[in-house]
């Protein structure tokens, strides 16, 4: 068990591609940190540098208080679960799990004890004598995790471990991984491009984009207080709505002028924060869950306006309404019982307590 620090980590591939552009990250002992971001943002590269599979071009990586830049993977005392599992096809499940311990010359009895314990945690006891070929995707996934658990390493590294599984199994294994972490408490760094996975698993989420860290924080904080437009749009599903808006002073307060003549009042406690932007054009961000039908809205700071849905998607527990507002495509979440039909104007309630304004010049949330 150990903490991990990345200091000004840079990775430049041959040919001058900068995959990681100087990131700083402190990961505490026992913490579960998820690196999330779109494809090609440098998540895997970062993880592989921590594992020692990729050279570090500049900066320092510290695991458990020792700089490991020049330490080969085998001496870093880490375990990694790969996207396609990378099980040894010529070894049985038991041998796959025991391999690392065998190389480290553990006594036979201890190896057996650990393998059996891991098999019990992961519920793969009856598979121990099979070869990987004879396992299903989910079972292989468990074996790959078992191989990591038996080692009892300082750090677990996961690189998109669930992306080869079908949707249902993915949800199930997600819970499984969380359970395992709650049992063994090993420091974990987990890479995914799925923000739902990131939100559900992480103690802290690290959002990456183009080789830099956009924001680090607990899932709820990222959700409610995104620092940049990128984070605001990346976290949450369906994604946050972005609508061009003009901030206009009215009396002591502010209102937002949206396309099609829609006007929304800014709550008083936010006026000071946005005052400097009066008269300017910004991007108004609001999540679909804060854009609802007008049934039972008696919360303060709700602004009501009319909009015409183009497409309605009934999901069962809610109905998603897709609306064109000027040039912006927005999405609202309606109660399934609300009588709405495409092309018919509908009153919508925007919960302005959860609004965001984004400075278009900097991409930062104001």
């Amino acid at each position, binding site marked *: 068990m150990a903490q991990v620090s990345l200091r000004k980590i840079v990775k430049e591939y041959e040919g001058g591609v900068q995959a990681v552009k100087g990131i700083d990250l402190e990961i505490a002992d026992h913490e579960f940190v998820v690196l999330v971001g779109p494809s090609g943002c440098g998540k895997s590269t970062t993880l592989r540098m921590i594992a020692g599979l990729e050279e570090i071009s500049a900066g320092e990586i510290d695991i458990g208080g020792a700089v490991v830049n020049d330490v080969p993977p085998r001496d870093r005392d880490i*375990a990694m679960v790969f996207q396609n599992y990378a099980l040894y096809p010529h070894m049985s499940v038991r041998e796959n799990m025991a391999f690392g311990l065998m190389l480290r010359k553990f006594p036979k009895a201890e190896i057996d004890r650990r393998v059996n314990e891991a098999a019990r945690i992961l519920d793969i006891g009856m598979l121990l004598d099979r070869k990987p070929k004879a396992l299903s995707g989910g079972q292989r996934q468990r074996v790959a995790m078992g191989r990591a658990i038996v080692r009892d390493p300082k750090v677990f590294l996961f690189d998109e471990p669930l992306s080869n599984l079908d949707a249902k199994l993915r949800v199930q294994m997600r819970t499984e991984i969380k359970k395992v972490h709650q049992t063994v408490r090993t420091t974990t760094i987990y890479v995914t491009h799925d923000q739902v996975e990131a939100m559900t698993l992480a103690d802290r989420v690290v959002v990456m984009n183009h080789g830099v860290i956009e924001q680090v924080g607990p899932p709820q904080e990222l959700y409610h207080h995104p620092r940049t437009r990128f984070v605001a749009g990346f976290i949450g599903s369906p994604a946050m709505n972005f609508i061009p808006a003009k901030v206009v002073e009215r009396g002591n307060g502010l209102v937002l002028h949206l396309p099609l003549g829609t006007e929304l009042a800014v709550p008083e406690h936010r006026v000071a924060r946005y005052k400097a932007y009066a008269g300017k054009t910004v991007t108004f961000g609001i999540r679909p869950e804060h854009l609802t039908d007008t049934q039972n809205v008696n919360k303060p700071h709700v602004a009501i306006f009319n909009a015409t849905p183009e497409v309605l998607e009934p999901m069962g527990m809610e109905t998603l309404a897709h609306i064109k507002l000027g040039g912006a495509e927005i999405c609202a979440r309606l109660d399934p019982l609300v009588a709405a039909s495409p092309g018919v104007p509908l009153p919508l309630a925007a919960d302005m307590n959860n609004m965001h304004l984004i400075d278009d010049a900097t991409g930062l949330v104001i």
Partner: protein
Amino acid sequence: MAPDSSAAVLAARPAAAPARGSAMKRFARRRSTIAFLMTLPLITVIGGLVAWPAGYAIYLATLNRRQTAFIGLENFDILLESETFRSVIWQSCFFAITAVLLKALVGFWLAHMLHHIPAKGQKIWRGMLLVPWVIPPALSTLGWWWMFDPSYSSINYLINAIGFPSVPWLGEPWWARISVIIVNVWYGAPFFMIMYLAALKSVPDQLYEAAAIDGATGWQGLRHITLPMMQNIISITVLFSLIVTFANYDIVRVLTNGGPRDLTQVFASYAFQVGVLSGNIPRGAAVSLFMFPLLAIIAYFVLRGVNKRNQEMA
């Protein structure tokens, strides 16, 4: 393996097809019939060029010298009692086993080195290292023969140049055996190299990464990942090469012609000597058939192992 199951599928299909027309028509339409007809040319070629000569050789080996009477296994009896033939057995085994092991080792070493040089340089080196294999062996052996020549040996010239005495390459029995093995390894190692290179490339990088993280050193990776993953290719190439090397004729023939004093004879060259040069065809056939049962048994077990691993892993 696959052939069994696909044959089963082929056989099962027509049963389900609706029966129409005469039995003959149905028979002709069966997919297994068509499959059989389409492979018939190949079956004919194999039958004519492999099975028939092999059967005929077995038949010949049971005849007397003038091929007038059936004498059973007497040719083998006589051979086993002959001092010369017993040393031919020993020499053949020594030659084949040493040469195959060396070819496998050298081939693996070359493949491993090639595998680790960047793709661009690899092509040139691979091409150059394949040259010995594409030159007709009788020709290249002639080149070696010159290099081993007692008076003109270029190898001895180099050895002398660094201050060592000349080596009687082809004149002394042990050196002659070594010379034959050197030429065979030189000729055969590229085959192993190319097979092993393909096998090395087929091992996913991620297995090495997983092993490195699991704590394996380079050697341990080689031992626990590379070699087991290549085991099928290794056993098939070794088996194949063992069969071919046991049957090797041209190198001994050109380099030493069996000499000195028959001490470099192997089965093939000795069979030629006995059967053709001395005119005892049946006994020559017996010599050349001598290894057949042993090789057949080895082949059976090797291929069974390959099959089993295929089913478990791939």
